[in-house]
């Protein structure tokens, strides 16, 4: 089942990372917590999916993210009321990577080029040599006059950054999602998805 879970997670859950991060950023006041919340959401969705695969991974992911946040609010005793625009996700305007789109050629290549271009120069060179030229670490170390350990470090760092960049929406598409346009909802605490 574990292999199966892996491909389900990669194809049905990870593709929504951009939307998830936007949602978390709008609903949670501390930017520093966002990656932790993301990890928590992924962990919980996979734990749940071990037993039963949800039909709609995206909706389930939102529900989980919302629960995590309300748990924390309760724990940290923050009064929270979200504007309606923040909890209604059905009409999200964000450019998404739907599963169909992942296989779509050019768009993905463009996304990769953009994500890759945002890496720091050294990371970029190292990853380029490894992935485009398929050079071994040893050879990369020689060409760049750095140690092999340093190559490994750059790969690890570049990988972490790329994962973030790749999840960010393709630029220049539509306007940002309108925020806070609706009236205040009476009580957003622990609310279930509609």
């Amino acid at each position, binding site marked *: 089942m574990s292999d199966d879970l*892996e491909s389900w*997670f*990669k194809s049905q859950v*990870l593709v929504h990372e951009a939307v998830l991060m936007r949602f978390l950023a709008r609903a949670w*006041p*501390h930017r520093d917590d966002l*990656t*932790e919340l993301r*990890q928590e959401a*992924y962990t919980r969705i*996979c*734990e749940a999916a071990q037993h039963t695969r949800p039909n709609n991974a995206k909706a389930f992911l939102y529900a989980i993210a919302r629960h995590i946040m309300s748990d924390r609010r309760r724990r*940290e*005793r*923050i*009064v*929270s*009321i*979200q*504007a309606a625009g*923040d909890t209604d996700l059905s009409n999200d305007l964000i450019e998404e990577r739907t599963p169909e789109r992942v296989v779509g050629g*050019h768009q*993905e290549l*463009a996304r*990769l*080029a*953009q994500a*890759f271009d945002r890496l720091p120069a050294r990371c970029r*060179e190292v*990853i*380029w*040599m*490894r*992935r*485009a*030229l*398929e*050079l*071994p670490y040893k050879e990369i170390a020689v*060409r760049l006059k750095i140690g092999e350990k340093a190559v*490994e*470090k750059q*790969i*690890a*760092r570049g*990988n*972490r950054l*790329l994962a973030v960049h790749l999840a960010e929406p*393709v*630029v*220049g*598409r539509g*306007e*940002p999602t309108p925020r*806070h346009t609706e009236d*205040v909802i*009476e*009580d*957003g*605490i622990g609310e279930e998805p509609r």
Partner: protein
Amino acid sequence: MSTESHQAIEEAASDWLARRSSGSWSSEDQRAFDAWFNQSMRHRVSYWRLESAWESTQRLKALGAGIQSDRPPPPGQWNLSPFFTQCADEEEQAAPHSSASANRMVRAFAASLVLAAAVGMAAWFLWPDPNRYETLIGATASLPMADGSKITLNTASEIKVAMSGQERRIELEQGEAFFEVAKDPSRPFVVVAGDKRVIAVGTKFSVRRDLGSADGIEVVVTEGIVRVEPVNGKGIHKLAAQPLTAGTIARANRGGVMIQKKDISEAEEQLAWRSGVLIFRDSTLADAAAEFNRYNPRKMVIEDELTAGLRIMGSFRATNVDAFVRLLQQGYPVETSIDEKRIVIRAR
């Protein structure tokens, strides 16, 4: 919740991936990796996520086709189909543009400042002096100007406008206003607030005065660059030396200057009043109440320290203080007594 920090897990996951693709991977490595991987779901999801990103870099090979050097081309210079140049163009437009509604106003207005229909959210007054504008408590107003600029007045605010061939000059007598300045390098746009002035050419920023002291001002810049300097050339030299860029929130008074650099989107939040909304991210109740009190004639008063220090987050209609107080009672051990003039809040 796990005691292992999420960063530590992510770093471990990326280290494993980097080791795995090094080409030297022993069965011992594999065993160690399996132990780590099987230890928790948290480890697995972090690994899968990074692996997925790593797998997509496979296609860098396709991007590298035909490139002679062993280094990648400079960012944005992918020598490929027209598709990619289009992409690069899009990137340049990526800087957040705020309200699209700030489009140039028709220039056919004769007077220096014309009272076109306000945005509909507010009533405002025109004083006998045709260049003086004022809003009541709880109201905001949008004022298009003949030069194409637009001014949005916040609650209980007052400005005086003086346009000349050399200068576009606005005096902020009280309150707060947001300025969307049409570009005109020959005529700087100057906002005078007490003993300081804020100077711009084409940009978007707000200036606020009602901070509790006579000489305090707050400037929020959401686009372009502005400069703040003393009107009479004395004091706050530090501010004058440092142009304020987009995303900056600066507060200045006699005592000194505090400059905070934020994301533009965070700076914009500070200006949510333009659509009648207040946004708090982890404010104290005391600060939130002070914000609400700007917009409402009936003032919130907090009686004890404990209650004043409660933390608030969320978005609220600035004029719907009743809803805010109701929610406060539901979420916290507080009680309120309300009369015509005040809403008193104390610990229950």
